[in-house]
């Protein structure tokens, strides 16, 4: 039984079919990689789950339908996500950015906040401790006081990942968390994703172009092409599937070629 399940999800933008009867599911403690060429509809699936798009079909989380719910309500149910471009609040520092994600855990009333009553102060301190723990875990503590707008993109992406964790999600959607990261940062990220999976035991859905990372830590892969599902199964099986190879691996080789060009420049050595 899947914790998070999509059934026959269809999404159209005008005459364009973005998602064509997509069905997939994730169990708790499972890391499902969502792969496919650019424009295959991967991010659209995330936007459907988090309520930013209104698809037809069914999306259920633990038996509750998510269709038609407001994004904030879906987030409040515990569906956390990261964004392709991090989407942090540039003026705030990393600590405050993470703190924003505690929004629905904080219960202080407006009056308690305005007068900063002891109850509100205590609550802030408790939740600040959670934020600091996550910063510490992601080795971000030394950067936590800097406005994030000035930090490198790779660091912003990791802060975005931390922000999703701070919310204590019951489902985690990660949209290309490794894009824009150096090889070293990718390895660290892979470690954190794996650790989060083991510690939290929640369903995790992961859009990724780095096939090495996917092969290394994903439990299962779901492949999309032109808004259609064309494969689903364990990494070794899916990556050998001829249809997947035909639709996707051409692009993968391109991506890897791109990585080969950039990696030596940054590292001076060929990537592992």
């Amino acid at each position: 039984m899947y914790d998070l399940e999509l059934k026959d999800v269809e999404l159209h933008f005008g005459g364009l079919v973005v998602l064509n009867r997509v069905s997939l599911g994730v169990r708790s403690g499972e890391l499902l990689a969502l792969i496919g060429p650019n424009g295959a509809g991967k991010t659209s699936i995330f936007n459907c789950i988090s309520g930013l798009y209104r698809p037809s079909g069914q999306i259920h989380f633990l038996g509750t339908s998510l269709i038609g719910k407001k994004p904030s309500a879906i987030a409040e149910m515990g569906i956390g996500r990261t964004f392709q471009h991090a989407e942090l609040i540039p003026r705030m520092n990393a600590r405050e950015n993470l703190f924003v994600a505690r929004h629905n855990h904080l219960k202080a009333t407006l009056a308690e906040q305005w007068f900063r009553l002891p109850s509100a102060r205590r609550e802030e301190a408790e939740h600040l401790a959670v934020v600091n723990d996550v910063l510490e875990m992601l080795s971000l503590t030394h950067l936590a006081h800097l406005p994030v707008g000035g930090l490198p993109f790779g660091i912003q992406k990791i802060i975005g990942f931390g922000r999703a964790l701070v919310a204590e999600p019951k489902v985690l959607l990660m949209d290309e968390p490794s894009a824009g990261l150096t090889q070293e940062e990718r390895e660290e990220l892979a470690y954190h994703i794996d650790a989060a999976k083991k510690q939290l035991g929640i369903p995790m859905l992961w859009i990724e172009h780095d096939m090495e990372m996917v092969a290394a830590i994903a439990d299962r892969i779901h492949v999309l092409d032109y808004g259609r599902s064309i494969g689903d199964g364990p990494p070794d099986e899916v990556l050998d599937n001829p249809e997947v190879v035909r639709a996707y691996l051409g692009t993968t080789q391109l991506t890897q070629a791109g990585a080969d060009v950039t990696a030596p420049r940054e590292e001076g050595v060929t990537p592992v």
Partner: protein
Amino acid sequence: MSNIETGIGKMTPATTRRKRLSQNQVAWIGLIVLLVLLPTSATPFHLDIASQIFIAGIGALALMVLTGIAGQISLGHSGLMAAGAFTTGILYKEAGAGIWITLPASVVAGAVIGLIFGLPSLRLRGIYLAMSTLALHFLVIYLGGEYEFASGASTGIFLDPPVVFGFEIYDGYAWYYVLLALVAGTYWGCRNLLNSKTGRAWEALHANETAAEALGVQVANYKLLAFVITSGIASFSGALFAYYQNFVSVEAFTLFLSIQYIAMIIIGGMGSLPGALLGAVFVTLVPYFVEWLMEAVPYIGLDITTVSSASYAAFGLLMILFLVFEPSGLTGIWKRLVGQFASPSKREDTP
């Protein structure tokens, strides 16, 4: 910053904060002592300017929260102040109500108007939102004018000095301390709010509404909340203005007043509460400075029209200069100065 020494686990955040606060506290206590002692060597003219600054400061704090923090542009600030002033004036004139009725009623009236005129913000952004708040301004001014006409008070409504616990707030010293306490209280409350869930939600929706919503912030509710709270405060400052002037008239609440408040938050530094206060000081002083300058320069005929048109021109020039050369306003200048004198390790960027 010093959280690296996490050996003491959960104790660290609290101790860090205490240390940082005590550093800030010194500066704040110094400022408060200075402000409390200031009247001892001030003329009534100085006290009047200070009181004007305090009233403007309350209004500027409200607009800073709405525009600088929550990102909602408003040209209705003058209209909201008029709403507060008229609520107070009408309640006093028609029912002889004291401040314990007029002030809360003004806050509520402002909050209700803010809620109604916040609704377009759910659909409109930027300049379009500004235009819709402009409607608020003209509506309130129209209603105020109608009241003045209907009640035969075509020159305005006169108010007696307010009485608090048997004390009549009349002379410059009393006003100075009352308004100082109120602007300090408003600042404190706004700052508390910004360091809480609500303030972070506002910052989040200002930066990116979609991302904020996906983080669980009910964007529509928090936008309206920003309008309600800041309109209540703006209306409150309008009521204080009415009491301070002993007089309410639509003439005082021009569109130029709204623009002056926008000038305050731009010149002070967008997104900074101390910036709102710095902006209030600066903008309140500009006309006096212009007048002084024109007196000093020979061959300029000094009458009210030339002074006020010179003030208008000065405002335009100042706003352009700040927007082009110092978008982070006086706060930005201040931070750079402090940054140059403070040792690098002591620099901390928490608002």
